[in-house]
């Protein structure tokens, strides 16, 4: 009886020590793991300001934001109409924002991340895809004039980043300050 109690006590101590030890190792590993996450200077590049006063109808510019390209397109009436037309069909990615009205703050400006949702390539400029929009050259994904995936392997629409207009719509601010 005494020996059994001794053994139980020993088992408990070994278990408790192991748990505390593993907890310590996990805790010590955390700083190493966390050191791989974006550093403060990378996070500081959270917003980009773009002067869009000179942008003509039908003209598109590519601006860098967080090291990634963003398409800023001043859409023509036809491109807007084509995007609204796309609202009526069954889309491969119906998750919001998928209606054209949800994807733009002003109908004439389309602001989307130029990163293909398939494997991160940069799609080609407006007018290269089958739906009047963007074609990703890597694996043949076609996006329409609202940046929605219409055909090809990409699983999702082009991301609409946080953005806002200021100075009476002459300046576009992409992103949100963080930290």
């Amino acid at each position, binding site marked *: 009886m005494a020996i059994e109690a001794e053994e139980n006590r020993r088992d408990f101590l070994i278990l408790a020590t192991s748990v505390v030890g593993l907890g310590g190792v996990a805790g010590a590993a955390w700083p190493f793991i966390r050191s*791989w*996450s*974006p*550093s403060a200077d*990378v996070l500081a590049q959270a917003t980009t300001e773009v002067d869009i006063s000179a942008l003509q109808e039908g003209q598109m510019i*590519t601006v*860098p934001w*967080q*090291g*990634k*390209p963003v398409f800023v397109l001043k859409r023509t009436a036809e491109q807007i109409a084509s995007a609204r037309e796309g609202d009526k069909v069954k889309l*491969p*990615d119906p998750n919001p924002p998928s209606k054209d009205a949800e994807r733009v703050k002003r109908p004439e400006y389309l602001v989307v991340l130029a*990163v293909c949702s*398939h*494997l*991160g*390539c*940069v*799609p080609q400029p407006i007018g290269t895809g089958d739906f009047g929009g963007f074609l990703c*050259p*890597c*694996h*043949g994904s076609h996006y329409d004039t609202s940046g929605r995936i219409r055909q*090809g*392997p*990409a*699983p*999702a629409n082009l991301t609409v980043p946080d953005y806002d207009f200021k100075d009476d719509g002459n300046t576009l601010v992409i992103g949100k300050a963080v930290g």
Partner: protein
Amino acid sequence: MFKSIMEWVDARLPVSDLIKSQATEYPTPKNLNYWWNFGSLALFVLIVMLATGLFLAMHYKPDANLAFDSVEHIMRDVNFGWLLRYLHANGATFFFVCVYIHILRGMYYGSHRSPREILWWFGVIIFFALMGTAFMGYVLPWGQMSYWGAAVITNLVSAIPVVGEELVVWILGGFSVGDPTLNRFFVLHFLFPFVVFGLVILHMWALHAVHSNNPDGIDVHEGKDTLPFHPYYTIKDLYGVGVFLMVYLAFVFFAPNFFLEPDNYIPADPMKTPAHIVPEWYFLPFYAILRSIDFLGSFSKLAGVVAMGGAIAILFILPWLDRSPVRSFRYRPLSRQLFWVFVLDCFVLGWVGYNPADATLFDGALPLIVIGRTATAVYFSYFVGLWLVTVLKIEKPKPLPKSI
């Protein structure tokens, strides 16, 4: 003098015993053919890669602003820098040539079958580690293909449900491939070969525990069927190294850029994707498998990644898929035919992977993606087919010889 020194050492650490039992007098089947050279050749290339890589690292700068120029500095200014870099870049190609032949040799002669499963597992793990090392090494020159290859491959991680997106940011150290990514890839590319070297030691430990398979795939009788490794196989392996060097160095000196992409001599530009991103040739079959799964809607991406990983991971269970009582395909006519279809299929997949995703044949009549899907199906069918013909005993093996 030497003898007495060795006696002193052996009394403290039995070095001579180890060399005798595991190298010079290590019993090796006497009927090994030239396909058995590729294991030692792969080890030879690993050593070449470690040596050239170490000296390249002394001149290379893992910084997004300096990396591309430092590689050009190696090519133009560093004494023999061009030679070190071309040996290293082409070494990667020939490493995979050796490793692929080594794997296929194992598959053909049944070297993965009992009792060599653990030996085989270490091999598959080494293969995975090599692919990771090669991928990260290709990022270091920081050209357009480096950059966009890295973007495409790291993006595969985002296919993982729930945590994928955050995991990509963590791996990249930012919101896109950038300086933090390059820096950590350099460190890992430096570290991994040493890990691989450790795995190779485990691979050889496992080999020496169960001994080599042979072209007949039958168990050997030590003494009657075996030869001491030295001098019989040391000389044969050295001969193989000689032939290998002729081919390898022919590329290094006369066609050093044959396997490299011209686009990688354009500095990385995060704002512009090359028209056609193509991985290094040794990844092409798996790249083709990834791209050929495009018919599952929003599941396509995840399914493609799973299929690509599965194409290699299936090798782990190969020893149990093959249920035949006979190891070597020499005595298994049906399996042999399946094997050669499989090898041919790998070339077809490679060719599909090399071409743009929307390419077609016969003026658009036959989209390449159809060939890609078919070849992917054939790839996995090999493993299922091998299992079926052996478990249902469809294949009648030829009689085995009594001994080698």
